[in-house]
Protein backbone atom coordinates (compact mmCIF):
# COMPACT_ATOMS: atom_id res chain seq x y z
CA UNK A 1 0.00 0.00 0.00
CA UNK A 2 2.73 2.43 0.98
CA UNK A 3 4.54 1.45 -2.21
CA UNK A 4 1.51 2.34 -4.29
CA UNK A 5 1.11 5.57 -2.36
CA UNK A 6 4.75 6.41 -3.03
CA UNK A 7 4.33 5.92 -6.77
CA UNK A 8 1.11 7.90 -6.63
CA UNK A 9 2.69 10.87 -4.83
CA UNK A 10 5.68 10.90 -7.18
CA UNK A 11 3.27 10.80 -10.08
CA UNK A 12 1.21 13.68 -8.74
CA UNK A 13 4.36 15.79 -8.34
CA UNK A 14 5.64 15.28 -11.88
CA UNK A 15 2.07 15.44 -13.11
CA UNK A 16 1.73 18.92 -11.62
CA UNK A 17 4.67 20.02 -13.75
CA UNK A 18 3.15 18.47 -16.87
CA UNK A 19 -0.03 20.30 -15.99
CA UNK A 20 1.84 23.58 -15.70
CA UNK A 21 3.45 23.07 -19.12
CA UNK A 22 0.05 22.13 -20.52
CA UNK A 23 -1.28 25.38 -19.07
CA UNK A 24 1.38 27.22 -21.05
CA UNK A 25 0.19 25.51 -24.25
CA UNK A 26 -3.39 26.41 -23.38
CA UNK A 27 -2.85 30.10 -22.67
CA UNK A 28 -1.28 30.52 -26.09
CA UNK A 29 -3.69 28.25 -27.89
CA UNK A 30 -6.68 30.05 -26.44
CA UNK A 31 -5.47 33.45 -27.54
CA UNK A 32 -3.93 32.59 -30.91
CA UNK A 33 -4.95 29.06 -31.99
CA UNK A 34 -1.25 28.30 -32.11
CA UNK A 35 0.63 25.35 -30.65
CA UNK A 36 4.14 26.44 -29.82
CA UNK A 37 6.57 23.58 -30.37
CA UNK A 38 9.19 25.55 -28.46
CA UNK A 39 7.11 25.38 -25.26
CA UNK A 40 9.44 22.74 -23.80
CA UNK A 41 12.39 25.01 -24.51
CA UNK A 42 10.96 27.65 -22.14
CA UNK A 43 11.03 25.00 -19.44
CA UNK A 44 14.65 24.16 -20.23
CA UNK A 45 15.68 27.83 -20.34
CA UNK A 46 13.87 28.50 -17.06
CA UNK A 47 15.72 25.67 -15.34
CA UNK A 48 19.15 26.49 -16.77
CA UNK A 49 18.68 30.23 -16.23
CA UNK A 50 17.76 29.58 -12.61
CA UNK A 51 20.88 27.43 -12.27
CA UNK A 52 23.13 30.17 -13.61
CA UNK A 53 21.63 32.93 -11.50
CA UNK A 54 21.36 30.99 -8.25
CA UNK A 55 24.31 28.58 -8.30
CA UNK A 56 26.85 30.14 -10.65
CA UNK A 57 26.22 33.78 -9.70
CA UNK A 58 25.09 33.07 -6.15
CA UNK A 59 21.95 35.18 -6.19
CA UNK A 60 19.28 34.57 -3.56
CA UNK A 61 16.83 31.91 -4.69
CA UNK A 62 13.78 34.15 -4.86
CA UNK A 63 15.54 36.79 -6.97
CA UNK A 64 17.01 34.14 -9.27
CA UNK A 65 13.58 32.54 -9.64
CA UNK A 66 11.90 35.83 -10.53
CA UNK A 67 14.58 37.09 -12.91
CA UNK A 68 14.84 33.74 -14.73
CA UNK A 69 11.09 33.71 -15.31
CA UNK A 70 11.07 37.34 -16.49
CA UNK A 71 13.95 36.72 -18.91
CA UNK A 72 12.20 33.73 -20.45
CA UNK A 73 8.97 35.72 -20.75
CA UNK A 74 10.89 38.41 -22.65
CA UNK A 75 12.25 35.71 -24.96
CA UNK A 76 8.66 34.62 -25.54
CA UNK A 77 7.77 38.15 -26.62
CA UNK A 78 10.79 38.22 -28.93
CA UNK A 79 9.68 34.97 -30.55
CA UNK A 80 6.30 36.48 -31.40
CA UNK A 81 7.75 39.73 -32.68
CA UNK A 82 10.68 38.36 -34.66
CA UNK A 83 9.57 34.99 -35.95
CA UNK A 84 5.78 34.81 -36.03
CA UNK A 85 4.51 38.34 -36.67
CA UNK A 86 6.25 38.72 -40.10
CA UNK A 87 4.63 35.57 -41.54
CA UNK A 88 2.43 36.63 -44.41
CA UNK A 89 0.30 33.52 -44.81
CA UNK A 90 -0.06 31.98 -41.36
CA UNK A 91 -0.96 28.42 -42.31
CA UNK A 92 -0.54 25.71 -39.68
CA UNK A 93 2.24 23.88 -41.51
CA UNK A 94 4.26 27.11 -41.83
CA UNK A 95 3.77 28.04 -38.18
CA UNK A 96 4.64 24.51 -37.06
CA UNK A 97 7.91 24.56 -38.97
CA UNK A 98 8.77 28.01 -37.59
CA UNK A 99 8.16 27.07 -33.96
CA UNK A 100 10.01 23.78 -34.47
CA UNK A 101 12.85 25.81 -35.94
CA UNK A 102 12.75 28.11 -32.92
CA UNK A 103 12.88 25.13 -30.57
CA UNK A 104 15.88 23.62 -32.35
CA UNK A 105 17.57 27.02 -32.42
CA UNK A 106 17.03 27.65 -28.71
CA UNK A 107 18.29 24.17 -27.92
CA UNK A 108 21.39 24.82 -30.01
CA UNK A 109 22.01 28.12 -28.23
CA UNK A 110 21.58 26.44 -24.85
CA UNK A 111 24.04 23.74 -25.83
CA UNK A 112 26.62 26.40 -26.69
CA UNK A 113 25.99 28.38 -23.51
CA UNK A 114 25.69 25.58 -20.96
CA UNK A 115 27.32 22.60 -22.68
CA UNK A 116 25.96 19.08 -22.73
CA UNK A 117 26.32 18.23 -19.05
CA UNK A 118 23.30 18.18 -16.79
CA UNK A 119 23.30 20.56 -13.83
CA UNK A 120 21.83 20.02 -10.42
CA UNK A 121 19.91 22.83 -8.84
CA UNK A 122 19.19 23.30 -5.14
CA UNK A 123 15.68 22.68 -3.85
CA UNK A 124 13.77 25.73 -2.72
CA UNK A 125 14.05 24.56 0.86
CA UNK A 126 17.10 22.36 1.02
CA UNK A 127 17.63 21.03 4.50
CA UNK A 128 14.12 19.99 5.48
CA UNK A 129 13.46 16.29 5.99
CA UNK A 130 10.87 14.52 3.83
CA UNK A 131 7.32 14.51 5.14
CA UNK A 132 5.89 11.08 5.97
CA UNK A 133 2.44 10.31 4.62
CA UNK A 134 1.15 6.81 5.53
CA UNK A 135 4.60 5.34 5.06
CA UNK A 136 5.40 7.17 1.85
CA UNK A 137 7.96 9.96 1.72
CA UNK A 138 6.99 13.31 0.29
CA UNK A 139 9.90 15.61 -0.47
CA UNK A 140 9.50 19.27 0.54
CA UNK A 141 10.18 20.21 -3.08
CA UNK A 142 7.06 18.27 -4.06
CA UNK A 143 5.05 20.40 -1.66
CA UNK A 144 6.56 23.51 -3.21
CA UNK A 145 5.68 22.26 -6.68
CA UNK A 146 2.09 21.47 -5.74
CA UNK A 147 1.70 24.77 -3.90
CA UNK A 148 3.13 26.87 -6.72
CA UNK A 149 1.10 25.09 -9.37
CA UNK A 150 -2.14 25.47 -7.40
CA UNK A 151 -1.37 29.15 -6.74
CA UNK A 152 -0.66 29.77 -10.43
CA UNK A 153 -3.81 27.95 -11.49
CA UNK A 154 -5.91 30.04 -9.11
CA UNK A 155 -4.16 33.23 -10.16
CA UNK A 156 -4.69 32.48 -13.82
CA UNK A 157 -8.33 31.68 -13.22
CA UNK A 158 -8.87 34.94 -11.34
CA UNK A 159 -6.93 36.84 -14.01
CA UNK A 160 -9.14 35.46 -16.77
CA UNK A 161 -12.45 35.94 -14.98
CA UNK A 162 -11.95 39.05 -12.82
CA UNK A 163 -9.57 41.45 -14.56
CA UNK A 164 -10.24 43.56 -17.62
CA UNK A 165 -7.09 42.32 -19.40
CA UNK A 166 -8.08 38.74 -18.70
CA UNK A 167 -11.55 39.26 -20.11
CA UNK A 168 -10.11 41.10 -23.10
CA UNK A 169 -7.79 38.15 -23.73
CA UNK A 170 -10.70 35.75 -23.58
CA UNK A 171 -12.58 37.93 -26.04
CA UNK A 172 -9.60 37.83 -28.40
CA UNK A 173 -9.55 34.08 -28.08
CA UNK A 174 -13.20 33.80 -29.10
CA UNK A 175 -12.92 36.06 -32.11
CA UNK A 176 -9.85 38.14 -32.61
CA UNK A 177 -11.22 40.42 -35.27
CA UNK A 178 -14.47 41.11 -33.45
CA UNK A 179 -12.52 41.91 -30.30
CA UNK A 180 -10.37 44.30 -32.29
CA UNK A 181 -13.46 46.07 -33.62
CA UNK A 182 -14.66 46.52 -30.03
CA UNK A 183 -11.45 48.37 -29.26
CA UNK A 184 -9.45 45.58 -27.64
CA UNK A 185 -5.79 45.86 -28.67
CA UNK A 186 -5.65 42.30 -29.96
CA UNK A 187 -1.99 42.47 -30.99
CA UNK A 188 -1.04 43.38 -27.46
CA UNK A 189 -3.19 40.54 -26.15
CA UNK A 190 -1.34 38.09 -28.38
CA UNK A 191 1.97 39.41 -27.04
CA UNK A 192 0.66 39.07 -23.50
CA UNK A 193 -0.33 35.48 -24.20
CA UNK A 194 3.14 34.71 -25.56
CA UNK A 195 4.83 36.24 -22.53
CA UNK A 196 2.49 34.53 -20.10
CA UNK A 197 2.88 31.10 -21.66
CA UNK A 198 6.67 31.42 -21.75
CA UNK A 199 6.66 32.50 -18.10
CA UNK A 200 4.52 29.51 -17.11
CA UNK A 201 6.97 27.22 -18.90
CA UNK A 202 9.90 28.84 -17.13
CA UNK A 203 8.28 28.42 -13.70
CA UNK A 204 7.87 24.75 -14.55
CA UNK A 205 11.59 24.56 -15.38
CA UNK A 206 12.66 26.21 -12.14
CA UNK A 207 10.57 24.01 -9.88
CA UNK A 208 11.30 20.73 -11.67
CA UNK A 209 15.05 21.35 -11.85
CA UNK A 210 15.85 20.15 -8.30
CA UNK A 211 14.11 16.81 -8.98
CA UNK A 212 15.39 15.91 -12.43
CA UNK A 213 18.58 17.96 -12.98
CA UNK A 214 18.48 20.16 -16.02
CA UNK A 215 20.25 20.04 -19.35
CA UNK A 216 19.93 21.59 -22.77
CA UNK A 217 17.88 18.71 -24.16
CA UNK A 218 15.28 18.31 -21.42
CA UNK A 219 12.77 20.48 -23.27
CA UNK A 220 11.54 18.21 -26.05
CA UNK A 221 10.29 15.44 -23.80
CA UNK A 222 8.73 17.80 -21.28
CA UNK A 223 7.09 19.77 -24.08
CA UNK A 224 5.67 16.61 -25.59
CA UNK A 225 4.35 15.45 -22.24
CA UNK A 226 2.87 18.85 -21.54
CA UNK A 227 1.09 18.61 -24.86
CA UNK A 228 -0.12 15.10 -23.98
CA UNK A 229 -1.47 16.48 -20.71
CA UNK A 230 -3.19 19.35 -22.49
CA UNK A 231 -4.75 16.95 -24.98
CA UNK A 232 -5.75 14.53 -22.26
CA UNK A 233 -7.53 17.23 -20.31
CA UNK A 234 -8.91 18.96 -23.37
CA UNK A 235 -6.87 21.52 -25.28
CA UNK A 236 -7.88 24.99 -24.13
CA UNK A 237 -9.35 23.96 -20.79
CA UNK A 238 -7.26 25.13 -17.80
CA UNK A 239 -8.68 22.69 -15.27
CA UNK A 240 -8.40 20.01 -17.90
CA UNK A 241 -4.69 20.76 -18.19
CA UNK A 242 -4.19 20.22 -14.46
CA UNK A 243 -6.25 17.04 -14.47
CA UNK A 244 -4.53 15.73 -17.61
CA UNK A 245 -1.11 16.45 -16.14
CA UNK A 246 -1.83 14.61 -12.92
CA UNK A 247 -3.41 11.61 -14.68
CA UNK A 248 -0.44 11.36 -17.04
CA UNK A 249 2.09 11.76 -14.23
CA UNK A 250 0.43 9.06 -12.12
CA UNK A 251 0.12 6.64 -15.06
CA UNK A 252 3.78 7.16 -15.88
CA UNK A 253 4.90 6.72 -12.30
CA UNK A 254 2.87 3.53 -11.90
CA UNK A 255 4.19 2.21 -15.23
CA UNK A 256 7.78 2.83 -14.18
CA UNK A 257 7.15 1.43 -10.72
CA UNK A 258 5.40 -1.78 -11.70
CA UNK A 259 6.86 -2.51 -15.15
CA UNK A 260 10.16 -0.94 -16.18
CA UNK A 261 11.73 2.47 -16.49
CA UNK A 262 12.42 1.88 -20.19
CA UNK A 263 8.76 2.35 -21.09
CA UNK A 264 8.39 5.66 -19.28
CA UNK A 265 8.33 7.83 -22.37
CA UNK A 266 6.22 5.36 -24.32
CA UNK A 267 3.35 5.77 -21.87
CA UNK A 268 2.81 9.45 -22.65
CA UNK A 269 2.82 8.69 -26.35
CA UNK A 270 0.36 5.83 -26.04
CA UNK A 271 -1.91 8.00 -23.94
CA UNK A 272 -1.65 10.71 -26.61
CA UNK A 273 -2.51 8.31 -29.42
CA UNK A 274 -5.46 6.82 -27.54
CA UNK A 275 -6.78 10.28 -26.71
CA UNK A 276 -6.36 11.50 -30.26
CA UNK A 277 -8.35 8.53 -31.55
CA UNK A 278 -11.01 8.08 -28.94
CA UNK A 279 -11.80 11.54 -27.66
CA UNK A 280 -9.86 14.30 -29.42
CA UNK A 281 -11.62 16.90 -27.29
CA UNK A 282 -10.08 15.46 -24.14
CA UNK A 283 -11.58 14.65 -20.75
CA UNK A 284 -12.88 18.10 -19.86
CA UNK A 285 -13.00 19.67 -23.31
CA UNK A 286 -16.32 20.38 -24.93
CA UNK A 287 -17.11 17.62 -27.38
CA UNK A 288 -17.76 20.08 -30.17
CA UNK A 289 -15.17 22.43 -31.61
CA UNK A 290 -16.45 25.31 -29.53
CA UNK A 291 -14.24 25.94 -26.58
CA UNK A 292 -16.25 28.30 -24.42
Amino acid at each position, binding site marked *: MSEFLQFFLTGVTTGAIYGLIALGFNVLYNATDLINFAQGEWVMLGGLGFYTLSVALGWPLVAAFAIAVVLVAVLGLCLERI*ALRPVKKPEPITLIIITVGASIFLRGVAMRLWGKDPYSVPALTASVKPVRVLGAALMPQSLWILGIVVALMTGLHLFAKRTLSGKAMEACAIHRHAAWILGIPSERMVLLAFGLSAALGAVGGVIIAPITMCSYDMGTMLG*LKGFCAAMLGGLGSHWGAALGGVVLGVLESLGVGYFSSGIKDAIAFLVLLII*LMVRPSGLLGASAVKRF
Partner: protein
Amino acid sequence: MGFEKRLWSTAALAVGVVAVGFWVHNPYTLQLLIVIGIHTLLALGLNMLMGYAGQISLGHAAFFGLGAYGTGILTTHFQWSPLAALPVVLGAACLVGYLIGRPVLRLSGYYLAMGTLGLGIIAHVIFREWDTYTGGASGLVGIPPLALGFITVELGRSGFYTVWATVVLFLVLCARVVDSRVGWALRALGDSEGGAAASGIHTAHFKAVMFSFSALMAALAGYLYAHLLGFISPSSFDFLMSIRMVTMVVIGGMASIWGSLLGASVITLLPEWLHVFCDYEMMVYGLILMVVMIFLPQGLTRGVLDAVQRARSRAHQL
Protein backbone atom coordinates in the same frame (compact mmCIF):
# COMPACT_ATOMS: atom_id res chain seq x y z
CA MET B 1 6.80 20.85 -66.31
CA GLY B 2 5.99 19.21 -69.61
CA PHE B 3 6.65 15.57 -70.23
CA GLU B 4 9.38 16.26 -72.77
CA LYS B 5 11.18 18.70 -70.53
CA ARG B 6 11.01 16.22 -67.69
CA LEU B 7 12.39 13.48 -69.90
CA TRP B 8 15.32 15.71 -70.81
CA SER B 9 16.10 16.71 -67.26
CA THR B 10 15.96 13.09 -66.12
CA ALA B 11 18.20 12.02 -68.99
CA ALA B 12 20.60 14.85 -68.11
CA LEU B 13 20.70 13.69 -64.50
CA ALA B 14 21.31 10.08 -65.55
CA VAL B 15 24.15 11.12 -67.85
CA GLY B 16 25.51 13.32 -65.08
CA VAL B 17 25.45 10.41 -62.64
CA VAL B 18 27.29 8.12 -65.06
CA ALA B 19 29.85 10.84 -65.83
CA VAL B 20 30.47 11.62 -62.17
CA GLY B 21 30.83 7.91 -61.40
CA PHE B 22 33.35 7.69 -64.21
CA TRP B 23 35.45 10.70 -63.28
CA VAL B 24 35.43 10.81 -59.50
CA HIS B 25 38.06 8.60 -57.90
CA ASN B 26 38.44 10.22 -54.51
CA PRO B 27 36.81 7.81 -52.02
CA TYR B 28 35.85 10.69 -49.73
CA THR B 29 33.97 12.49 -52.51
CA LEU B 30 32.27 9.25 -53.53
CA GLN B 31 31.15 8.70 -49.95
CA LEU B 32 29.80 12.23 -49.76
CA LEU B 33 27.88 11.69 -52.99
CA ILE B 34 26.46 8.44 -51.62
CA VAL B 35 25.22 10.26 -48.52
CA ILE B 36 23.68 12.97 -50.69
CA GLY B 37 21.89 10.26 -52.66
CA ILE B 38 20.52 8.63 -49.51
CA HIS B 39 19.40 12.02 -48.19
CA THR B 40 17.74 12.78 -51.53
CA LEU B 41 15.67 9.61 -51.20
CA LEU B 42 14.64 10.69 -47.70
CA ALA B 43 13.80 14.25 -48.74
CA LEU B 44 11.92 13.10 -51.82
CA GLY B 45 9.74 10.72 -49.83
CA LEU B 46 8.99 13.30 -47.16
CA ASN B 47 8.33 15.95 -49.81
CA MET B 48 5.65 13.78 -51.39
CA LEU B 49 3.94 13.75 -48.01
CA MET B 50 4.62 17.31 -46.85
CA GLY B 51 4.78 19.21 -50.10
CA TYR B 52 2.03 17.58 -52.08
CA ALA B 53 -0.35 16.04 -49.57
CA GLY B 54 0.24 18.85 -47.07
CA GLN B 55 0.72 16.45 -44.15
CA ILE B 56 3.61 17.16 -41.84
CA SER B 57 5.74 14.45 -40.26
CA LEU B 58 8.21 15.31 -37.53
CA GLY B 59 9.12 11.69 -36.91
CA HIS B 60 10.20 10.40 -40.27
CA ALA B 61 13.55 9.22 -38.94
CA ALA B 62 11.50 6.38 -37.44
CA PHE B 63 11.02 4.85 -40.90
CA PHE B 64 14.63 5.53 -41.88
CA GLY B 65 15.57 3.61 -38.73
CA LEU B 66 13.01 0.89 -39.42
CA GLY B 67 14.70 0.19 -42.75
CA ALA B 68 18.19 0.25 -41.30
CA TYR B 69 17.47 -1.74 -38.14
CA GLY B 70 15.11 -4.10 -39.93
CA THR B 71 17.71 -5.26 -42.39
CA GLY B 72 20.47 -5.00 -39.79
CA ILE B 73 18.69 -7.36 -37.41
CA LEU B 74 17.62 -9.82 -40.11
CA THR B 75 21.10 -10.08 -41.62
CA THR B 76 23.18 -10.15 -38.43
CA HIS B 77 20.98 -12.02 -35.95
CA PHE B 78 19.18 -14.32 -38.37
CA GLN B 79 21.81 -14.58 -41.12
CA TRP B 80 19.39 -13.63 -43.90
CA SER B 81 20.90 -12.52 -47.15
CA PRO B 82 20.50 -8.77 -47.67
CA LEU B 83 18.45 -9.34 -50.82
CA ALA B 84 15.97 -11.50 -48.96
CA ALA B 85 15.66 -8.83 -46.29
CA LEU B 86 14.84 -6.10 -48.81
CA PRO B 87 11.21 -7.02 -49.60
CA VAL B 88 10.51 -7.80 -45.95
CA VAL B 89 11.84 -4.44 -44.77
CA LEU B 90 10.04 -2.47 -47.48
CA GLY B 91 6.82 -4.39 -46.90
CA ALA B 92 7.06 -3.81 -43.17
CA ALA B 93 7.61 -0.08 -43.67
CA CYS B 94 4.61 0.13 -46.00
CA LEU B 95 2.43 -1.80 -43.61
CA VAL B 96 3.53 0.11 -40.51
CA GLY B 97 3.18 3.36 -42.45
CA TYR B 98 -0.35 2.50 -43.48
CA LEU B 99 -1.42 1.14 -40.09
CA ILE B 100 -0.04 4.14 -38.24
CA GLY B 101 -0.97 6.58 -40.98
CA ARG B 102 -4.62 5.64 -41.13
CA PRO B 103 -5.45 6.71 -37.55
CA VAL B 104 -2.75 9.37 -37.09
CA LEU B 105 -3.60 11.14 -40.33
CA ARG B 106 -7.16 11.64 -39.16
CA LEU B 107 -5.53 14.44 -37.23
CA SER B 108 -4.41 17.55 -38.95
CA GLY B 109 -2.07 20.45 -38.40
CA TYR B 110 -0.70 20.67 -34.87
CA TYR B 111 -2.12 17.36 -33.70
CA LEU B 112 -0.55 15.50 -36.59
CA ALA B 113 2.79 17.20 -36.00
CA MET B 114 2.74 16.28 -32.31
CA GLY B 115 1.59 12.75 -33.07
CA THR B 116 4.40 12.11 -35.55
CA LEU B 117 6.92 13.80 -33.26
CA GLY B 118 5.93 11.35 -30.53
CA LEU B 119 6.14 8.47 -32.99
CA GLY B 120 9.72 9.41 -33.87
CA ILE B 121 10.72 9.66 -30.24
CA ILE B 122 9.18 6.30 -29.38
CA ALA B 123 10.96 4.65 -32.31
CA HIS B 124 14.24 6.14 -31.11
CA VAL B 125 13.56 4.84 -27.58
CA ILE B 126 12.95 1.36 -29.02
CA PHE B 127 16.19 1.43 -31.06
CA ARG B 128 18.08 2.49 -27.95
CA GLU B 129 16.45 0.30 -25.31
CA TRP B 130 15.82 -3.04 -27.05
CA ASP B 131 19.48 -3.95 -26.79
CA THR B 132 19.24 -7.72 -27.33
CA TYR B 133 18.47 -7.04 -30.98
CA THR B 134 19.48 -3.45 -31.69
CA GLY B 135 22.72 -3.39 -29.72
CA GLY B 136 21.43 -0.56 -27.56
CA ALA B 137 23.15 2.79 -27.47
CA SER B 138 26.43 1.42 -28.83
CA GLY B 139 24.74 0.32 -32.05
CA LEU B 140 24.62 -2.68 -34.33
CA VAL B 141 27.88 -3.75 -35.98
CA GLY B 142 28.86 -6.21 -38.69
CA ILE B 143 26.00 -5.66 -41.13
CA PRO B 144 27.10 -7.47 -44.32
CA PRO B 145 27.49 -5.52 -47.56
CA LEU B 146 24.93 -5.88 -50.29
CA ALA B 147 25.80 -8.66 -52.74
CA LEU B 148 24.17 -8.49 -56.15
CA GLY B 149 25.23 -11.67 -57.92
CA PHE B 150 28.98 -11.41 -58.26
CA ILE B 151 29.20 -7.68 -57.48
CA THR B 152 29.54 -6.53 -53.90
CA VAL B 153 28.11 -3.10 -53.27
CA GLU B 154 30.37 -1.10 -51.00
CA LEU B 155 31.20 2.49 -50.16
CA GLY B 156 32.85 3.49 -53.40
CA ARG B 157 31.90 3.30 -57.03
CA SER B 158 29.52 0.33 -56.77
CA GLY B 159 27.72 1.97 -53.86
CA PHE B 160 27.57 5.26 -55.71
CA TYR B 161 25.95 3.67 -58.76
CA THR B 162 23.48 1.65 -56.72
CA VAL B 163 22.34 4.61 -54.65
CA TRP B 164 22.08 7.02 -57.56
CA ALA B 165 20.34 4.52 -59.84
CA THR B 166 17.76 4.25 -57.06
CA VAL B 167 17.55 8.03 -56.79
CA VAL B 168 16.97 8.48 -60.53
CA LEU B 169 14.39 5.70 -60.51
CA PHE B 170 12.46 7.32 -57.68
CA LEU B 171 12.77 10.83 -59.12
CA VAL B 172 11.09 9.52 -62.29
CA LEU B 173 8.52 7.56 -60.30
CA CYS B 174 7.62 10.52 -58.10
CA ALA B 175 7.40 12.83 -61.10
CA ARG B 176 5.01 10.38 -62.72
CA VAL B 177 2.91 10.14 -59.58
CA VAL B 178 2.76 13.92 -59.21
CA ASP B 179 1.61 14.37 -62.81
CA SER B 180 -0.97 11.60 -62.60
CA ARG B 181 -4.53 11.80 -61.35
CA VAL B 182 -3.23 10.70 -57.97
CA GLY B 183 -0.93 13.71 -57.95
CA TRP B 184 -3.81 16.07 -58.67
CA ALA B 185 -5.82 14.46 -55.93
CA LEU B 186 -2.88 14.92 -53.56
CA ARG B 187 -2.47 18.56 -54.41
CA ALA B 188 -6.17 19.15 -53.95
CA LEU B 189 -5.80 17.47 -50.57
CA GLY B 190 -2.86 19.66 -49.68
CA ASP B 191 -4.71 22.84 -50.64
CA SER B 192 -8.00 22.11 -48.97
CA GLU B 193 -8.89 18.84 -47.40
CA GLY B 194 -12.57 19.66 -47.17
CA GLY B 195 -12.68 20.72 -50.78
CA ALA B 196 -10.92 17.56 -51.87
CA ALA B 197 -13.32 15.39 -49.90
CA ALA B 198 -16.26 17.27 -51.36
CA SER B 199 -15.05 16.56 -54.88
CA GLY B 200 -15.07 12.86 -54.18
CA ILE B 201 -11.47 12.19 -53.18
CA HIS B 202 -11.16 9.50 -50.53
CA THR B 203 -8.89 11.70 -48.40
CA ALA B 204 -8.17 9.33 -45.49
CA HIS B 205 -7.12 6.56 -47.87
CA PHE B 206 -4.98 8.84 -50.05
CA LYS B 207 -3.20 10.32 -47.06
CA ALA B 208 -2.43 6.92 -45.57
CA VAL B 209 -1.21 5.58 -48.92
CA MET B 210 1.06 8.60 -49.30
CA PHE B 211 2.30 8.17 -45.75
CA SER B 212 3.14 4.55 -46.43
CA PHE B 213 4.79 5.41 -49.75
CA SER B 214 7.04 7.96 -48.08
CA ALA B 215 7.70 5.47 -45.27
CA LEU B 216 8.77 2.97 -47.92
CA MET B 217 11.21 5.46 -49.44
CA ALA B 218 12.66 6.30 -46.04
CA ALA B 219 13.03 2.60 -45.24
CA LEU B 220 14.76 1.99 -48.57
CA ALA B 221 17.18 4.80 -47.75
CA GLY B 222 17.75 3.18 -44.35
CA TYR B 223 18.34 -0.20 -45.99
CA LEU B 224 21.02 1.22 -48.31
CA TYR B 225 22.54 3.19 -45.44
CA ALA B 226 22.85 0.12 -43.21
CA HIS B 227 24.43 -2.09 -45.86
CA LEU B 228 26.80 0.54 -47.15
CA LEU B 229 28.08 1.67 -43.76
CA GLY B 230 27.93 -1.73 -42.08
CA PHE B 231 27.19 -0.06 -38.76
CA ILE B 232 24.18 1.73 -37.36
CA SER B 233 23.50 3.42 -34.04
CA PRO B 234 20.36 4.99 -32.61
CA SER B 235 21.79 8.51 -32.79
CA SER B 236 21.44 8.43 -36.59
CA PHE B 237 17.69 8.04 -36.24
CA ASP B 238 16.84 10.56 -33.55
CA PHE B 239 14.68 13.66 -33.44
CA LEU B 240 17.43 15.78 -34.98
CA MET B 241 17.50 13.47 -38.02
CA SER B 242 13.77 14.00 -38.48
CA ILE B 243 14.37 17.74 -38.29
CA ARG B 244 17.23 17.44 -40.76
CA MET B 245 14.82 15.76 -43.18
CA VAL B 246 12.21 18.49 -42.73
CA THR B 247 14.95 21.10 -43.26
CA MET B 248 15.95 19.45 -46.55
CA VAL B 249 12.37 19.56 -47.79
CA VAL B 250 11.86 23.15 -46.65
CA ILE B 251 15.11 24.40 -48.18
CA GLY B 252 14.57 22.60 -51.45
CA GLY B 253 11.01 23.76 -51.60
CA MET B 254 7.82 21.98 -50.65
CA ALA B 255 6.07 20.40 -53.61
CA SER B 256 9.23 20.43 -55.70
CA ILE B 257 10.67 17.12 -56.85
CA TRP B 258 13.99 18.54 -57.98
CA GLY B 259 14.09 20.74 -54.91
CA SER B 260 14.54 17.58 -52.81
CA LEU B 261 17.82 16.96 -54.60
CA LEU B 262 18.92 20.54 -53.91
CA GLY B 263 17.81 20.49 -50.26
CA ALA B 264 19.54 17.16 -49.61
CA SER B 265 22.75 18.43 -51.22
CA VAL B 266 22.79 21.68 -49.26
CA ILE B 267 22.09 20.00 -45.91
CA THR B 268 24.72 17.31 -46.56
CA LEU B 269 27.39 19.71 -47.81
CA LEU B 270 26.84 22.47 -45.25
CA PRO B 271 28.69 20.65 -42.44
CA GLU B 272 31.50 19.81 -44.85
CA TRP B 273 31.98 23.44 -45.81
CA LEU B 274 31.65 24.90 -42.33
CA HIS B 275 34.23 23.28 -40.12
CA VAL B 276 32.88 24.72 -36.92
CA PHE B 277 29.45 23.45 -37.91
CA CYS B 278 29.29 20.55 -35.47
CA ASP B 279 28.82 22.76 -32.41
CA TYR B 280 26.40 25.04 -34.18
CA GLU B 281 24.48 22.37 -36.08
CA MET B 282 21.20 22.80 -34.24
CA MET B 283 21.38 26.57 -34.27
CA VAL B 284 21.95 26.58 -38.02
CA TYR B 285 19.07 24.19 -38.75
CA GLY B 286 16.76 26.17 -36.50
CA LEU B 287 17.69 29.42 -38.18
CA ILE B 288 17.31 27.93 -41.65
CA LEU B 289 13.85 26.62 -40.83
CA MET B 290 12.70 29.93 -39.40
CA VAL B 291 14.24 32.21 -42.02
CA VAL B 292 13.14 30.14 -45.02
CA MET B 293 9.60 29.75 -43.72
CA ILE B 294 9.28 33.45 -42.91
CA PHE B 295 10.80 34.90 -46.06
CA LEU B 296 10.66 32.14 -48.69
CA PRO B 297 7.79 29.85 -47.68
CA GLN B 298 8.04 28.13 -51.06
CA GLY B 299 11.66 27.16 -50.47
CA LEU B 300 14.88 28.15 -52.14
CA THR B 301 14.11 26.74 -55.59
CA ARG B 302 10.80 28.55 -55.93
CA GLY B 303 12.15 31.67 -54.21
CA VAL B 304 15.12 31.97 -56.54
CA LEU B 305 13.01 31.22 -59.62
CA ASP B 306 10.48 33.86 -58.55
CA ALA B 307 13.21 36.41 -57.96
CA VAL B 308 14.65 35.71 -61.41
CA GLN B 309 11.23 36.04 -62.97
CA ARG B 310 10.60 39.35 -61.18
CA ALA B 311 13.97 40.68 -62.30
CA ARG B 312 13.24 39.57 -65.83
CA SER B 313 9.82 41.21 -66.00
CA ARG B 314 11.29 44.37 -64.50
CA ALA B 315 14.02 44.36 -67.19
CA HIS B 316 11.25 43.85 -69.74
CA GLN B 317 9.37 46.88 -68.55
CA LEU B 318 12.37 49.17 -68.80
